[in-house]
């Protein structure tokens, strides 16, 4: 992650504050910062969203294209993730500087979205074994203010809610060949059911306690973190420990309990917002916790 330089004194200050459940900006350990979401911001995509988590800004665009299904699952469509770190976010992402980090995050998303029931992948199938919808999800980081994965997953869920997949009819001609016709009707689309899409919750261990939604300064004091992917019912669809320090089993226990609680709240907040916003482009905000 793009990191800031902190002196030892500042680090100690943050660690002591966290022990007392008070962070530099006045939040408790389980609070998220102000989140603003806008949907439908990029016109030539099938779905898009822009999300601002205080200093972190993420733009997600989803394009639905037709492609060949994977040989091991010929009746389903699939998702392809690509994370791009714009040089705007931090000078160290210039050129190929952000490649390792972005590959790592793309992998995280790809892994977590592999479970069968996250999206109705079978509805993305056009002709079994030959043609299916492939959703290319491109995530661009515009500004880096800490807690990148959480912001990206929130934006992805919002963009998926916003995605319109055109209706498709399959015509069979007399010789047995098949032609695919895409509907031109502006209302001829179907949307995706996103109730089971997971969100990432990153828990950073600072001193003896852990915090949710760490800022850049807090990430610099953090020895290890746990990135948990939680769905709306509190189940975990993927988890990985990051960082070069170790965690005790009790800490992990506490972190997972927090992850479940916070994850459910996050989902609720985002779902209410998305149902209010609908397809309009006006921005709304919400505060969790």
């Amino acid at each position, binding site marked *: 992650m793009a990191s800031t330089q902190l002196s030892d004194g500042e680090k100690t200050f943050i660690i002591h504050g966290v022990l007392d459940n008070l962070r530099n900006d006045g939040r408790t350990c389980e609070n998220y910062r102000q989140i603003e979401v806008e949907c439908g911001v990029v016109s030539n995509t099938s779905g898009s969203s822009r999300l601002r988590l205080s200093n972190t800004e993420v733009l997600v665009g989803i394009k639905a294209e037709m492609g060949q299904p994977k040989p091991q699952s010929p009746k389903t469509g699939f998702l392809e993730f690509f994370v791009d770190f714009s040089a705007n976010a931090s000078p160290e992402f210039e050129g190929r500087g952000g490649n390792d980090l972005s590959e790592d995050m793309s992998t995280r998303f790809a892994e977590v979205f592999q479970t069968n029931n996250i999206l109705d992948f079978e509805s993305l199938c056009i002709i079994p074994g030959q043609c299916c919808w492939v959703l290319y999800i491109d995530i661009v980081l515009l500004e880096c203010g800490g807690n990148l994965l959480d912001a990206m997953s929130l934006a992805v869920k919002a963009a998926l809610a916003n995605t319109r997949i055109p209706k498709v009819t399959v015509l069979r001609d007399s010789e047995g060949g098949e032609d695919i016709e895409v509907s031109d009707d502006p209302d001829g689309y179907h949307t995706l059911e996103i109730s089971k899409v997971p969100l990432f919750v990153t828990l950073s261990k600072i001193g003896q306690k852990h915090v949710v939604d760490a800022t850049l300064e807090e990430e610099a004091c953090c020895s290890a973190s746990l990135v948990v992917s939680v769905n709306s019912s509190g189940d975990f669809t993927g*988890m990985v420990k990051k960082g070069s320090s*170790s965690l*005790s089993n009790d800490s992990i226990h506490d972190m997972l309990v927090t992850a479940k609680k916070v994850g459910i709240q996050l989902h609720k907040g985002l779902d209410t917002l998305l149902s209010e916003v609908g397809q309009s482009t006006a921005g709304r905000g919400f505060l969790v916790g």
Partner: protein
Amino acid sequence: MPVDKKRITGPEVTQSPLYFLEDSSGISQLVNKDGTRKDGRGENDIRPIFMKAGVVSQAQGSAYIEIANTKVICAVYGPRQVLRREDFSMTGILKCEFKFATFSCPFRRKFQPDVEEKEFALIIEQALSPAVCLHKFPKSQVDINIRVLENDGSALAASIICSSVALTDAAVEMYDIVTACTLRITPEHMLMDPSYTEETNSINCESNGVVTMGFLPSINQTSSLLQRGHLSCDKVLKALQICTEGCQRIYPLIHECIRRSVKSKYRPAEQDKEKSEEDQNPSKG
């Protein structure tokens, strides 16, 4: 995909014969009615492990592990100078390269590392970092190269164990040895040390998952955790407990392997005598 000009290439599009199986059965039961698994083990049984250190003559340290059919070899080079000056830091760096051999999995893998291998390399690096005394070799890096020669499940756990044995063989100072264990969770069972079929069978269905955990037994800390699949919070917490126990059971074996390798390095004559004694009384761990 761009043509790989540096290797002998065959045809561009190939398909594995496994897609063409006549009788590809669907989801089959992993556990029989009497509670045993397909290979006759119980739920908590770990497969037989063979470990040896010092197998690559060119490396500073190396190790080889076999967990039943899973075979992993690891070589450690270093500490040596960092390759790029930008990586200068007052603590040492661990650089891990992880690769499945192309013939190691049922479906052939490519020569170039794919995303799964890059992710595993990062996870192994982060699993080993807490155990190594990085401050002892500033401005230097230790290169850990791992090849999985055959993958029959628990490849990541085997790699973590293999690389920590290789690090000790290379005389890199460490706080503790890292052990690792994999657990496959189904709606009814928790299977320790799964084979490849057990790991991949219906993994994408609900309430199924795999947890791999790297553990430091002496200081009782977890250095690595990877969970895939869809699991409830309670199941994950229970899985962590079982994994910890599994890791602690493997620890004495690693200890014994390292002890033997150190003995054979520094007292070869006595080792021959001991070996001939053991030939008469084979030991089981």
